[in-house]
């Protein structure tokens, strides 16, 4: 069964293709606003509260939300709510308590990347933080981008019947065109459009489903009759509940989310972005859970789903509920989710290569003109994109292995470091470097050797471990001096 079968309808395919290619037009429209490197990587700190809010929530959510969470709710029931609660709460606090402070300080230091900020904040002339951070970003985020491109290409190939390689090249080319033209500004405006498409899919869809079924009470009664534990939010167990909430600990360490806060025109506006972003996050997250629950009520046996995969429930229900126009839009919503994450992460990789490694380390004694910086940044986006594309084609096993650690590894490496750098004056450079390394290593070791026996999500011990180590090393250094 091909869940994209309905795309055979010409109108559905037209809408679907429009959702895919519209971002390129945005790239052309934003070209004139990208005049220097700061514009290219952080929108010249001119983005408004709405763009920042929607860009932060949509680039933070990949297909994990649309397909993953709905599949999780199908499989586990109401308990899947905890998987969205953790990151929604974390990002609410981030907007207000991390975003505002970071935005103010990055402007004072004239930083355009997260590592720029760390280096200035700790007067790290030996570039230890920059090198450590660049390595972590280079490995995890490049793998992330490649995996997103591969996931997008696989779905595009299933949807259109194109070979996977052709789909991969099409998806990558499309991203690269608008990114090269408009940089961060194009990415951010495309994120806004995609946030709207995602919200449409994740709100209208369950609303229609609930109306058809006769309301939420009918839904819960149907699920209870099938399996009472499916509507018990605590049936997943305490360990899983804490692990789900712990997903949120990863948010403050994702450079592609953090950089959104640095791009706002007025730090105080982040308070409003927090309300808008939280509203959007809540609607999208709970919408995804409702889709999974509706799916279980409509198709109780997982054997009846394509490939017996719960993550197919979004597409299966869309084809049952909607005609070609809405179906095209809903199927496009999946690509919107995948590409909005991939482009934001690709921009972070490019900024790390050009700004953190080339300009600040390799060519640190030479001054580059603004126009050469901008032109180099554009080239490096293309080069990074091609590298990610090649990795997605040739090294997919390694990529998917690395991606398993990416959310946790980045979250533990940068989250505690960022929070302490903003809120604890005694934090030292050595403390930050130790925390970054420890956070990454604990994530990997815990996931490989201790997760199964302990049942604890690796990010929780890694985040706590990195946090404690930064405090300890900084404290010892301070006492020593």
């Amino acid at each position: 069964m091909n869940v994209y079968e309905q795309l055979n309808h010409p109108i559905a395919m037209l809408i679907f293709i429009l959702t895919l290619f519209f971002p390129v037009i945005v790239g052309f429209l934003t070209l004139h606003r990208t005049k220097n490197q700061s514009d290219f990587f952080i929108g010249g700190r001119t983005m408004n509260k709405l763009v920042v809010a929607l860009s932060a929530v949509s680039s933070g959510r990949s297909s994990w939300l649309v397909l993953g969470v709905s599949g999780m709710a199908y499989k586990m029931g109401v308990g899947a709510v905890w998987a969205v609660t953790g990151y929604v709460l974390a990002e609410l606090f981030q907007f207000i308590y991390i975003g505002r402070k970071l935005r103010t300080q990055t402007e004072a230091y004239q930083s355009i990347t997260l590592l720029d900020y760390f280096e200035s904040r700790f007067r790290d002339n030996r570039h230890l933080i920059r090198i450590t951070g660049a390595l972590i970003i280079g490995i995890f985020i490049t793998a992330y981008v490649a995996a997103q491109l591969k996931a997008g290409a696989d779905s595009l190939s299933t949807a259109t019947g194109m070979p996977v390689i052709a789909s991969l090249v099409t998806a990558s080319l499309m991203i690269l065109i608008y990114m090269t033209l408009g940089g961060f500004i194009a990415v951010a405006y495309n994120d806004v459009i995609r946030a709207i498409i995602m919200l449409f899919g994740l709100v209208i869809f369950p609303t229609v489903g609930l109306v058809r079924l006769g309301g939420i009470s009918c839904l819960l009664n149907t699920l209870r009759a099938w399996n009472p534990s499916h509507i018990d939010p605590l049936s997943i167990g305490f360990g899983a509940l804490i692990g789900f909430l712990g997903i949120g600990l990863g948010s403050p360490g994702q450079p592609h989310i953090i950089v959104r806060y640095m791009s706002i025109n007025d730090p105080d506006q982040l308070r409003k972005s927090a309300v808008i972003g939280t509203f959007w996050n809540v609607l999208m997250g709970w919408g995804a859970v409702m889709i999974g629950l509706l799916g279980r009520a409509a198709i109780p046996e997982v054997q009846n789903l394509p490939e017996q995969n719960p993550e197919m429930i979004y597409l299966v229900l869309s084809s049952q509920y909607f005609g070609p126009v809405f179906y095209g839009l809903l199927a496009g919503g999946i690509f919107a989710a995948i590409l909005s994450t991939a482009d934001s992460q690709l921009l972070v990789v490019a900024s790390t290569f050009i700004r953190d490694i080339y300009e600040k380390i390799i060519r640190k004694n030479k001054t580059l003109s603004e126009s050469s910086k901008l032109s180099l940044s554009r080239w490096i986006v293309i080069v990074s994109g091609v590298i990610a594309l090649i990795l997605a084609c040739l090294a997919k096993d390694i990529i998917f292995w690395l991606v398993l650690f990416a959310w946790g590894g980045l979250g533990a490496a940068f989250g505690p470091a960022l929070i302490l750098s903003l809120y604890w004056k005694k934090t030292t450079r050595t403390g930050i470097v130790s925390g970054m390394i420890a956070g990454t290593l604990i994530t990997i070791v815990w996931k490989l050797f201790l997760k199964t026996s302990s049942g604890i999500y690796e990010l929780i011990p890694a985040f706590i471990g990195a946090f404690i180590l930064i405090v300890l090393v900084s404290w010892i250094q301070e006492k020593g001096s």
Partner: protein
Amino acid sequence: MFQALAVLIILPMLIIGLSLVLYYLSGKQET
């Protein structure tokens, strides 16, 4: 049933409410 309704309906409303409270409190802090 009540627990399910609480996490599906009341919890998201509480989180949106919390965002408004934090918006208000963070504004007061500034002044």
